[in-house]
């Protein structure tokens, strides 16, 4: 079959560029400029898919993004995409598409059996059954799930990449039809920065679908000239294949641009497939056009039944005859225009109009062409399964609520529905504008604008083309002026010669049927198989609110989000309930206007770019020496350094012993560092920390505990007094930014009188901490300008000097419990320092250790880690640090420590745990129970926060929070694990060197 329905002349297709494609395994040929839908129609293919619920045969219904029926599985393998509208797929060489939701084929779909039982499957049937027996639900549900869904997800990762961009403009114009192009030209000529976006492959909108004369030339010439002018202007960005999908507050608008979807697979190198535009517009003009409404009659879903403007578009734009013998069923003049265009393309046309008459000039033209005209008539039903073969027409009675006389049959292979127009109000509604119902036009139109926004043209209910041009032009001028561009420019609208301009319409929301029963096959929502009968049932059962009816019947909830169904549905609901359409109201329009790929929304922020990785200056050394990594916030920290054949536990045992008996070295760069400076620096610290700071001498360090205002521990760390007015605060690695924010909010909002500045210096410094009995000796080798003796350089002091020739700030603090020196150098020298320490330390057996060994060593000392041993509900006294809570001053969180709950005697308190079996290492997170019981619930009285094997001590150690723990030392408790119970005794959390003689020494 080779394009038997293609016209020899006309259209915007390129007949010299044939495109071969496959649909359902069959090879066809179309042309560049075709959509998949137009190419299929050119080849006589109407049956494209099956419906969601009843698996009824479905064809091509529209020519645009409102398509509910013709959804296909585009491409195969990694490139496959489900639910793509054939009407929006630009044909490219080698395209492969398949029908979905049918088996074994779209012609013979086994699930069409559903259609036979359709009476058993009214809206909401699943709420009423599948409840017995109870245990069978999951089985029933599996069947339901397999029947639902439409296309299939890919099973491979996406080979394409995506991109995002931010843009700002004075005027954003959405749509490039008559109103949009006029608006863009008028705004652009003032010099305003203009972005114009249209979802189609070329500008022109409905001008491309109709046979219009503008200034006595075909409309295409005017469109081309407008596009040329816009493209030539530097202040204009014209974006085609770009769907404006979402309109948020403060004129923030999102658009999705398809960059390579129209090109053959694999032909675009590493270009992104799609780009997300995030646009902040000073002014927005919505020239989004209108969607034609279908008419609701029996079997209105048969392949070959389509919207009249779609048939008109296929004839005029794509040079395809969608049928040989058409019945145009309309309630307004636009159907007549479509009928005339079809007739001129050689289609035999019968016009069925609900009204008594059309515009006289249209009637005259129809008579000139000898078209059969049936006024005051309706199409009652369509016949034909996989393609429409006939329609039954009948005369309406004078009240338009029933039929008069008998019906007659008309043979046809195409039915065009022209039920009036709905302005595309999606973006307007998203902008929070309210819709109002226009009785004369029988449609919703935009109400008052809420944002800096205007609607123009058909989107504003201005269906007359001449007015659309002038309205667009005025909107463009006014928007530019409001954006500050008041330059007077000359813009004249073209002289318009169109066939139909009248807006005379006679709405008939539901065609009366000959039967007394609800019209079960009169479809309102085509994709979800919701019928007029379903809406009647919903209202009957109390789901009268339009939102209830929508949810109960699933009307408007398909991938088209009800573009062709919503207004018909609510008008039918209004008719049933007797309320007005305005009072019935619409459901909310949600973004996006058409679906956006998740890949496009994610852009480049996936994989390695999902979150920035922070690395220390010594990172490469750790990597080269086989470090395993721990993620701490965004940092990659060395976790442990396994040697050949070592497990994690082997490695940490070795690292621990080396540190306790010789010397260990830790990259401590990631600790947060904040410099605090100003005459009131000590006052700030005094208010932020629980302990006192004013008396700390320059040259000394102090451990501080920070609470939130609720009294719970928030962070901790050592702070150095660098000078009278200058401190260096250390925070936990993951909390650095939060602590800085914390200081700032108090300084700026509560204590603006304090003269203090805070600044993050985390990344300015690299820190190597050496720890162990030989630490002093090693440092002495490399640092000759500091007296390192315990008398001259005692614990909890700091000094400056040179280490390996590098200027350094050295602090004698310890998290391991051994004599330790934290050597801070400018970040760029970090690697040099580290390398030299490793080199000189070799003879002492220097051993790099990671975060795991650090955690073990500090746990042996009973030092807490904020965020591990505390969980946001722990106060200083709970972890045995009551001595750090000053009674002499106020500080953040102090008052909360006096609340009744804070003073409870049965609070959880930090303890150590020793298991009866010294080899048993408790899992962290294990719960301490009040008593052993065979079955839960079992009362819990505490839990393990930290737990390790201590190689140095030769037994396991654990820290735990335990109810009244401080008074339970010596008691035995039970821990209930998933598979067993373990007994342990409660002890002091300081397992090693409780008096700190080693680190002080």
């Amino acid at each position, binding site marked *: 079959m080779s394009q038997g329905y293609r016209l020899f002349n006309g259209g915007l297709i390129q007949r010299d560029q044939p495109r071969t494609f496959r649909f359902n395994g069959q090879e066809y040929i179309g042309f560049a400029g075709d959509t998949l839908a137009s190419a299929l129609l050119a080849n006589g293919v109407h049956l494209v898919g099956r419906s969601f619920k009843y698996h009824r045969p479905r064809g091509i219904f529209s020519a645009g993004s409102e398509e509910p029926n013709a959804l296909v599985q585009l491409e195969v393998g990694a490139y496959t*995409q*489900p*639910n793509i509208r054939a009407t929006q797929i630009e044909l490219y060489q080698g395209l492969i598409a398949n029908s979905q939701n049918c088996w074994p084929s779209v012609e013979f779909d086994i699930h069409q059996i559903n259609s036979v039982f359709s*009476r*058993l499957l*009214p809206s909401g*049937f699943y*709420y*009423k*059954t599948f*409840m017995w027996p*109870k245990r069978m639900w*999951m089985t029933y*549900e599996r069947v*339901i799930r*397999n029947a639902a*869904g*439409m*296309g*299939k*997800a890919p099973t491979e*990762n*996406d080979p394409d990449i995506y991109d995002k961009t931010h843009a700002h403009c004075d005027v954003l114009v959405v749509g490039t039809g008559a109103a949009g192009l006029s608006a863009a030209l008028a705004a652009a000529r003032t010099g305003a920065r203009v972005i114009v976006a249209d979802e189609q492959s070329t500008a022109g909108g409905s001008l491309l679908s109709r046979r219009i004369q503008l200034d006595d030339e075909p409309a295409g010439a005017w469109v081309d000239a407008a596009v040329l002018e816009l493209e030539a202007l530097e202040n204009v960005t014209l974006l085609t294949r770009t769907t404006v999908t979402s309109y*948020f507050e403060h004129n923030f608008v*999102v658009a999705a641009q398809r960059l390579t979807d129209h090109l053959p697979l694999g032909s675009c190198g590493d270009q992104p497939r799609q780009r997300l535009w*995030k646009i902040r517009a000073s002014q927005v003009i919505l020239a989004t056009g209108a969607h034609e409404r279908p008419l609701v009659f029996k079997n209105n879903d048969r392949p070959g039944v389509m919207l009249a403007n779609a048939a008109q578009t296929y004839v005029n734009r794509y040079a395809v005859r969608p049928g040989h013998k058409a019945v145009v069923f309309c309630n307004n003049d636009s159907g007549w225009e479509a009928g005339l265009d079809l007739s001129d393309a050689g289609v035999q046309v019968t016009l069925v109009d609900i009204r008594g008459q059309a515009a006289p000039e249209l009637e005259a033209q129809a008579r000139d062409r000898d078209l059969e005209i049936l006024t005051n008539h309706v199409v009652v039903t369509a016949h034909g399964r996989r393609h429409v073969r006939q329609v039954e027409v009948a005369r309406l009675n004078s009240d338009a609520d029933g039929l008069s006389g008998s019906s007659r049959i008309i043979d046809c292979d195409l039915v065009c529905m022209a039920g009036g127009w709905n302005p595309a109000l999606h973006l307007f509604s998203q902008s929070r504008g309210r819709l109002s119902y226009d009785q004369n036009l029988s449609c919703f139109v935009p109400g008052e604008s809420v944002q800096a926004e205007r609607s123009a043209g058909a989107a504003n209910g201005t269906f007359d083309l001449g007015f659309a041009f002038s309205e667009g032009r005025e909107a463009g001028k006014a928007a530019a002026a409001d954006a500050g561009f008041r330059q007077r420019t000359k813009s004249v609208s073209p002289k318009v010669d169109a066939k139909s301009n009248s807006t005379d319409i006679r709405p008939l929301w539901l065609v009366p049927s000959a039967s007394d029963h*609800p019209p079960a096959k009169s479809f309102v929502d085509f994709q979800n198989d919701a019928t007029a009968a379903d809406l009647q*049932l919903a209202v009957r059962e*109390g789901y*009268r*609110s339009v939102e209830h009816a929508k949810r109960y019947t*699933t009307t408007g909830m398909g*991938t088209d*989000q009800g573009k062709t169904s919503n207004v018909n549905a609510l008008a039918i609901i209004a008719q049933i309930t007797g309320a007005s359409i305005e009072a019935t109201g619409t459901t909310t329009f*949600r973004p996006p206007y058409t*679906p*956006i790929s998740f*890949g496009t*929304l*994610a852009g480049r*922020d*996936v994989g390695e770019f*999902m*979150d920035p*990785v922070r690395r220390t200056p010594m990172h490469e050394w750790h990597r080269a020496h086989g470090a395993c990594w721990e*993620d*701490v916030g965004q940092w990659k920290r060395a976790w442990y350094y396994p040697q050949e054949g070592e497990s994690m536990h082997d490695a940490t045992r070795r690292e621990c012993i080396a540190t306790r008996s010789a010397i260990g070295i830790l990259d401590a760069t990631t600790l947060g560092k904040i410099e605090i400076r100003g005459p009131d620096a000590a006052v700030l610290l005094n208010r932020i920390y629980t302990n006192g700071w004013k008396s700390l001498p320059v040259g000394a360090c102090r451990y501080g505990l920070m609470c939130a205002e609720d009294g719970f521990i928030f962070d901790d760390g050592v702070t150095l007094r660098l000078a009278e007015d200058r401190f260096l605060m250390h925070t936990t690695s993951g909390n650095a930014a939060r602590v800085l924010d914390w200081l700032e909010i108090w300084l700026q909002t509560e204590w603006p009188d304090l003269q203090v500045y805070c600044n993050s210096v985390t990344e300015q410094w690299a820190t190597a901490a050496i720890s162990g009995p030989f630490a002093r000796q090693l440092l002495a080798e490399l640092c000759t300008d500091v007296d390192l003796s315990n008398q001259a350089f005692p614990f909890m002091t700091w000094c400056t000097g040179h280490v390996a020739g590098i200027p350094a700030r050295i602090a004698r603090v310890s998290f391991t419990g051994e004599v330790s020196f934290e050597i801070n150098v400018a970040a760029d020298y970090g690697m040099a320092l580290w390398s030299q320490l490793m080199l000189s330390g070799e003879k002492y057996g220097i051993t790099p250790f990671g975060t795991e060994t650090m955690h073990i060593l500090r746990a042996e000392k009973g030092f807490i880690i904020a965020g*591990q041993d505390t*969980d*946001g*509900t722990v106060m200083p006294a709970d972890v045995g640090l009551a001595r750090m809570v000053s009674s002499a001053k106020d500080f953040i969180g102090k008052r909360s420590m006096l609340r009744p*709950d804070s003073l409870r005697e049965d609070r959880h308190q930090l303890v150590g745990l020793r298991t009866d079996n010294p080899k048993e290492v408790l*899992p*962290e*997170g294990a*719960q301490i*129970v009040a008593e052993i019981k065979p079955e*839960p619930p079992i009362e*819990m009285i505490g839990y393990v926060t930290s737990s390790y094997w201590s190689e140095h001590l030769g037994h396991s150690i654990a820290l735990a929070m335990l109810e009244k723990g401080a008074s339970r030392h010596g008691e035995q408790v039970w821990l*209930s694990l998933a598979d067993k119970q373990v007994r342990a005794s409660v002890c002091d959390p300081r397992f090693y060197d409780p008096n700190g003689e080693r680190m002080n020494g």
Partner: protein
Amino acid sequence: MKYSFASLLRNAFSYHENWQSAWRSPEPKREYDAIIVGGGGHGLATAYYMAKEHGMRNIAVIEKGWLGGGNTGRNTTIIRSNYLRDNSAQIYEHALKLYEGLSQELNYNIMFSQRGVLNLAHNQHDLRELSRRVNAIRLNGVDSEFLNPQQTKAFCPILNVSPNSRYPVLGASLQRRGGTARHDAVAWGYARGANNLGVDIIQNCEVTGIRQSDGRVEGVETSRGFIGAKKVGVVVSGHASVLADMAGFRMPIESHPLQALVSEPIKPMHDTVVMSNAVHVYVSQSDKGELVIGAGIDGYCGYSQRGSFPIVEEQINALVELFPIVSRLRMMRQWGGTVDVCPDASPIIGKTPVKHLYFNCGWGTGGFKATPGSGWAFAHTIAQDEPHELNAPYTLERFNSGYLIDEHGAAAVAH
């Protein structure tokens, strides 16, 4: 009329013209024994259990819009009871148990689908928290287990567990009894059940004031006039502060937008529920085939029932990171609700400074899963003028005493 396959069959022969309305639309009476303000899932459940468990028949539910139109109809339908604190475990588990028999009890299929809920761990800190939680939940008598990355992958084959990810999956907790339910059906089922017990359900009736004298509630002023009531229970989700303001007190609550979105419907690809706090997103697939996706609340207060776009972008980054094969699928619809967030991420269910005025609020992101338990406990509280032991700790006074029930880790709120 009882719903069953037989009744469906019978009605099919009469073209479904004989079905009755699931609930009446009565005019409000002049006075009720109790009024529930708010016709969402929690409010309807409250009325249902007041009628069923406490024999109160002269009661009404007043809804300013349409039933289930607030967060009931806007959430991601996840049901689980894997909460850390004992009190939370008890009330959420009570809710889960009620859910397990709810379709039969209400004779309305709420499609509760127990396909399991996975909570992922992405770092050592997550693992520790997860372990603590799994142990505590298990000892509270609630099902919970730990899965390693391979077991997690086996349970959810489309999950990316590559160790080379930015934040690899290091393990997960699994509550097999968790899952999803059809959210609208929960509201409609309770509405029908309450209606059948004589409860008046009054839609399109907005409360504009709470009338009281001598510190005791007398009724509510509404858009349809004053309606007297001996007791008033307020369960209005994101708008608790607004109603509290009418009654003359403040709440420890901030109302934030919470967003959700769905993909286009596709054939089954994801048969469980996955939640991750570190790579922040949660995902399930509905019976209709849509991927249902949510994450944390927006960062600032808002009643606009819509959220900020960057939040959606972030959750989709997380989605594509965890499930790379969804990259070519498409977002079909996004929306927002307004959730009321308490400082400790636990609700308030109980008495207020006004006598016989009760509030049930502060569920944050976790309200849907609690619906039956919340309604059950609140019904007891109103009927007996005394909290049930399930909700006794969830007082307003706890914000003075400091007896907070910290559930930040469980709430899936970004923190």
